[in-house]
């Protein structure tokens, strides 16, 4: 089971990245995760000229003795953070035009993040949902948490349709502590509804990352002839011409992605599109690269 989710190549790729330089999370695992806040810790960060109001306990008197100038020392804060993964297991996530469907791809992604958090001694939790909460693993850094998480990920099965509003009400109850919230879904909902639903997580000081998992066939359908399509969630059928799929559909899905990206950015949410046709590690590395650039 472990081997299925933790592909050695994927794991090595993620471990090789400098997470310190790329993420801005609230807590750190010592030596790897570093807080953007300056605090009371043992690791020196910089000197700053004293200004009235500063705590005199932070003044470096050794420097004052040599230079008769007041400087205060600043240290990097060190803390543990909490990772909560929200995994969409709706029926539409079982779609795939090649060997790996979207749900498998989301499982790989969630497992990788869980393993990463476990290696950093971070507390990690998982919520699997469709229109209801299918499974919940409370965040914890205890021994055996990783296996619980992976087991829960493995048990996730395609359910019914996605209803963001209904399960997210409960999510707020699960996030009592500031941390990193990762939402993995195909987001078949209006962007404003998605953002409106997810946005409250951000209010509590969480860093929210939206992983938008889509199949290449969903991004750019390639039909050589008219086809009869069946909606995997509603079971409705529709006959689609290749001209429409090449033209109007692509225009609409691109507009949807762009709207989601823009509105998420506006709400302070991180958004990243994961194409299941691309390697998982590549997607993660690209995301982390974007995070690094944002710093």
């Amino acid at each position: 089971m472990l081997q299925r989710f933790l592909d050695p190549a994927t794991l090595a790729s993620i471990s090789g990245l400098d997470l310190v330089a790329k993420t801005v999370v609230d807590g750190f695992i010592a030596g790897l995760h570093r807080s953007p806040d300056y605090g009371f810790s043992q690791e020196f960060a910089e000197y700053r000229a004293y200004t009235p109001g500063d705590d005199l306990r932070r003044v470096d008197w050794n420097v004052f003795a040599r230079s008769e100038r007041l400087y205060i020392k600043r240290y990097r804060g060190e803390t543990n953070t909490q990772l909560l993964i929200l995994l969409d297991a709706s029926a539409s996530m079982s779609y795939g035009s090649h060997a790996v469907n979207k749900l498998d791809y989301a499982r790989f992604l969630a497992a990788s993040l869980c393993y990463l958090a476990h290696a950093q001694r971070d507390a990690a939790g998982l919520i699997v949902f469709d229109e209801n909460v299918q499974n919940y693993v409370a965040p914890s850094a205890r021994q055996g948490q990783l296996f619980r998480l992976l087991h829960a990920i493995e048990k996730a099965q395609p359910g019914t349709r996605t209803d963001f509003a209904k399960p997210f009400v409960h999510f707020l109850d699960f996030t009592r502590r500031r941390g990193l919230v990762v939402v993995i879904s195909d987001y078949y909902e209006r962007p404003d509804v998605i953002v409106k639903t997810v946005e409250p997580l951000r209010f509590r000081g969480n860093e929210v990352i939206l992983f938008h998992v889509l199949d290449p066939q969903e991004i750019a359908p390639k039909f050589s002839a008219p086809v009869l399509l069946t909606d995997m969630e509603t079971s409705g059928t529709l006959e689609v011409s290749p001209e429409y799929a090449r033209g109007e559909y692509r225009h609409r899905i691109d507009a949807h992605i762009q709207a989601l990206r823009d509105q998420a950015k506006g709400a302070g949410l991180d958004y990243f599109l994961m194409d299941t046709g691309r390697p998982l590690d590549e997607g993660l590395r690209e995301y982390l690269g974007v995070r690094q650039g944002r710093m």
Partner: protein
Amino acid sequence: MGLLTPLALAGLVAVGLPVWLHLLRKHKTTPLPFASLMFFERRTQSSIKHRRLQYLLLLALRAAVIALLAFAFARPFLHSRLAALAGGPKLTVLAIDNSFSMRDGDRLARAKREAADVASKLRDQDKLQVLAFGSQVHVMGDSAAAIQTIQPTDTRSSYAELSRALRSIAQSSRLPVEAHLFSDMQKSSLPANFADLRLGESVRLIAHPVADRRAANFAVESVNAPRRVYGSGKARVEATIAGYGTDQVKRRVSLVLNGREIDSKTVDVPAGGRAAAEFLPADLPFGLNRGEVRIDSGDNLPDDDRFYFSVERAEARRVLFVHEGRNQRDALYFRTALEAAAESAYALDAVPVEQSGNLDLHKYAFVVLSDVGSLPASFETALRDYVRAGGSLLVALGRESALRNRVPVFDEAVVEPRYYGRDGALFQSAAWLDAGHPSIHNAQRWDDVKFYQAVRVNPGAARIAARLGDDTPLLLDKQIGEGRALVFASTFDNISNDFPLHASFVPFIEHTANYLARQEEGPSNYLVGSYLELRQAKQQGAAVEVLDPKGERALTLDEAARAQNMPLTMAGFYDVKRPNGRHELVAVNADRHESDLDMISADTLALWQNTAQGPQNANSGGDAEAPKTMEFWWYVLIAVLALSIAESLLGNHHLTVDQATE
């Protein structure tokens, strides 16, 4: 349209196969699951109808391929007339009459003008061919510019020849032919047999008459004059003046010799009739003379108002007649017959055999040995050389010559003399005559000629021209060197036979004399379109020089060395120098059928045009042309090929769709 193998249409049953495949066999459509139809719209429903339409198109293509394949195997054909009606390309033939009669007024210029007008209205897809026709059809070219190169000729127009050419063009071109005829529509140009005017089925004839009405015309229809006059003989020139569509009128007729008017007369030509004029020119010069009979007609066709003829005044040719001294009768009969027949063309020198030793033989046209016994050796040697060099010899065998073992010069053995009175048969008749021999050609029958004596000679390699009832060769002909020798197995003295007393004796002597003297008695004038014999086969290699009426050489060097004959294409005098050195003047005149400008009636013209439409004339004989058909199965196969490619592409497209949906 028709089908050559209609049974192949049974293959149309196979059209049911694609119908079964498409309409009767149920197609199942597998839905393709998709994550969400959130971004699709209901209006794409019509695409399936479009697909069904494509299936129907595929069905139609497949059915069409099978149906056309069966149709192609049925070998469909179109009648070329239908092909023409289909508006396809056609071959436009502009046939312009340039015969002698087109010299009347501006007929030829008008014909060329109207032809150019027709050529200017042709469509781009039409082909053009320009013909000029008289007695023969000449292809002038395939552009309108060729019209202007057509010149008038002196030939007689022949609509039968034109129809034959149009049939040939229609057969070779494979296109419908639209023939425009620009002619004065002379009735005299029609053939004797109307079936000769038959046009091909794909030929459409459009007539453009360039003569508005029947024009009155006078012409010198014919001139009868001797080709040669010997010695002091007089030449009688008889001319016939004809009026075509004319009123009764007097016309002045004149005789012109070597460009000088010798005599003239006024004749009364009846309405639409003929009048004769006779001239006896007294002072005909020696040698070749250019004769011409002219009338003053005042009509639009002056070229037929003169008629050319040639006449030659020559000395009589000498003939050596060698006989036994005591026998004068044969010379008498021979001379009398010769003078009676040949108008003093020959002068007979009768010489006893004893005086023949020192004669110069080369001045004689031919030599006659009339029942001579022994010949002086020198004379026989000279005679043999004379014959081998091209001279001619006639040997009559009688009692004296029967004593010899061989016929002199002829060199064949004397078998025996035959005396029929002693045998009880009393006489023999000529049982068989070779009518093809020049001596006997056109001769009267010899049935009542009685032969009492004859000498049987071994014929050897000689040609036997006549035999007696007992199979004895009577007349033998043998080529010796360049000359020839004739043996008459009896005598000319009215003793061995009674031949000299019969009327057939004179033409026999005349023809034999002309044959031996190589005296060709041709006409004094020829018609344009006839052929002039230039040489005999053995004269190959010796050049003939011919100057046409314009004074230009009528033959190329190769033709001058090889040609056996040549066509006479224009009116006037041809100067001919033959291989043997003889100089001749050949007078040539246009055919006077061209002088009759009476036009074809509208009914006859319509009948001619309809020969391309109705069934073939029953009188046309065995060469009736089969209806021309144009098979187009290969076009159908090309269509099948194109449809098959389209079907493959469309079918492959559908196959790809099916695989995608699965």
